């Protein structure tokens, strides 16, 4: 799954010189850059759908970098990878940042090489995640096209049950099961049960438990 848009790097720092120099650095590495003076300004931006990452100073007047991290995590939209930079490093802060899922935590003045390497990692991660997200969205879209009965059959097929068993559980004939099964495979665009299982896993389809199985037998 490839993502079409080019990555955009977002820089959030209240210091003008730092913003300007960071823009230069990241721009010189070939990325598109957008800079913001505060977390609020960043949140108010028009979000682009493509991949990217966020470089943000931990301590700023107003909303701090960590608070921004929490705000983004709470939001429904695209959770961009975050790289933290700080003029005042302390261990508890960095731990909180990493636990919150940050890609890296750099103390000013940092080595530009380290920053660019972190940006590379972050973008790659975002591309992957976006790809995954898209994938999941597609699978769910397919699942949504299944009828309730097809859904039931789907759920049981992925447990490895035979058509006969499925028929028994659902109270329908084996032939009917076969028909539903074929339709499910078609709608889900799966070429094998194994693939169906993977798609189910991706979509988070709930699988019936062992207990139901014994009940049938």
């Amino acid at each position: 799954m490839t993502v079409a848009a080019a990555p955009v790097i977002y820089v959030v720092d209240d210091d003008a010189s730092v913003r300007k120099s960071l823009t230069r650095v990241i721009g010189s590495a070939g990325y598109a850059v957008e800079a913001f003076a505060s977390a609020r300004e960043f949140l108010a931006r028009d979000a682009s759908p493509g991949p990217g990452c966020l470089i943000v100073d931990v301590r700023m007047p107003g909303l701090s970098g960590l608070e921004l991290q929490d705000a983004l995590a709470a939001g429904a939209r695209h959770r961009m990878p975050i790289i933290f930079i700080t003029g005042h490093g302390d261990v508890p802060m960095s731990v909180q940042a990493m636990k919150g899922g940050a890609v890296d935590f750099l103390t000013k003045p940092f080595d530009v090489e380290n920053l660019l390497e972190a940006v590379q990692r972050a973008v790659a991660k975002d591309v992957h995640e976006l790809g995954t997200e898209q994938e999941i969205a597609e699978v769910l879209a397919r699942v949504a096209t299944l009828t309730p009965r097809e859904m039931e059959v789907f759920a049981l097929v992925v447990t490895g049950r035979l058509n006969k068993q499925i028929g028994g559980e659902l109270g329908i004939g084996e032939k009917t099961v076969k028909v539903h099964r074929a339709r499910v495979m078609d709608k889900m665009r799966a070429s094998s049960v194994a693939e169906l299982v993977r798609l189910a896993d991706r979509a988070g389809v709930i699988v019936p438990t062992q207990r139901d199985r014994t009940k049938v037998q």
Partner: protein
Amino acid sequence: MTSQHFWWFATAATVIVVQACVIVRLLAIRLARRRARSIQEERGLERQRMEVSLAERLAFEKLLSSLWSAFSNVLTDDFDRQVQEALHRIVAFLDVDRGCLLEFTRDDPTVRSWMTQAGPDLGDFPWSIARVRRGDIVSFSRVDELPDAAAVDRATCDAAGITSQIAVPLAVGGAVVGALVLSTTKVERAWQADEGNQGLHLLGEVFAYALSRKQVEHEAQRLRQELAHIGRVSAMGELTASLAHELNQPLTAILNNAEVARRFLAAEPLDLAEMCAILDDIIADDKRAAEVIQRFRRLLKKGDIEYVSLDLNVLVSEVGRLLIGNAVIRGIPMRLDLAPDLPRVRGDRGQLQQVVLNLVLNAFDAMSGMGAGGGVQNLTIRTHCDGAHAIVEVRDSGTGIAEKDVDQIFEPLYTTKSEGLGMGLAIARTIVDAHGGRLGATNNGDGGATFHFSLPVPHSAT
């Protein structure tokens, strides 16, 4: 002789005797009257003399008491002027031509002096000064009276036209703190014996008091300055964090820019315009860093006390700039609410910065334990005027002051924190008191406390 002649003789003799007696009596009466009159005259003269002397005495007492009151109210700034005025009055009163006050400092051979008019250098009276410093009165009515050992002194007198002079040592608590020197240049003046000198001694006492008080105040000021310096140095830990944070920004920018420039140099073609722009930014950030260091250095410098006209708004803003790094690190928003028409006050910039610094650091500490659960944290520094005073308030949203601590917090070495000397508030109070102001603290109704100090606005300030 017949009895008749005898009787005539006897009668005549009697008359003669009686007449003689009468004459003698009359003469005696006349003598007595004359004596009485001359006694009366004498008494009258004496009374006149007494009245004159009483009037003189009264005038002297008046002079003395007005000198005392002038010096008991004197401010350090005004001291020189007061001394000059006093010397002139004494010179006029005692009808001499020159007056001079000398100040000796312990352990220091140099001598300060105030004079009613320009005169010879004091170094030119080595003999006299040496004796006066030992506590002796040195006087001469004629220059010739000076001994051979005082040859230099004699030469000076001749050169300056001094005809007679008296130098009275001024002692406080057994130590000679100075001398009062009166000289004539027109006539030779006979200095009176002890009781006349008593007047000089009394006058001398005023100066002795004034000098010793000046020295004490000087010492007190010096100690206060030391204390303020100690306070600044102990605040350094906090300031260092602020400094590091402030410096990191330009340093980061410089490093970023330099690395980009390095890459650009390797690229073809070389974008000169961009290189110039990068270098400009590097230079600007470097200057910014230098400024930050300057600001901190100015605060930590140990300077002499200098009372100048100050705008408290400017002073508060400067301290705010110094501590913004600290505030950001702690995540405490700092707000300045400055009255636009705040009148100026008189004070020492360094010391008053110290006061504001201590109060803000104190507020930071009050809020440090609280964290996210304690509600909204904020710090506000506010200035305003109540007509007679300029007031600065530092309001925090911290834990507030416990009832039992309210009186104690300004005591030296009192601290509720695990670190720190506990000197910050005591130093602040000492400084504010010395400036004629008041420093206090009150708990806020909505949590936290406000520390406030007021400074008097000089009447002549616009």
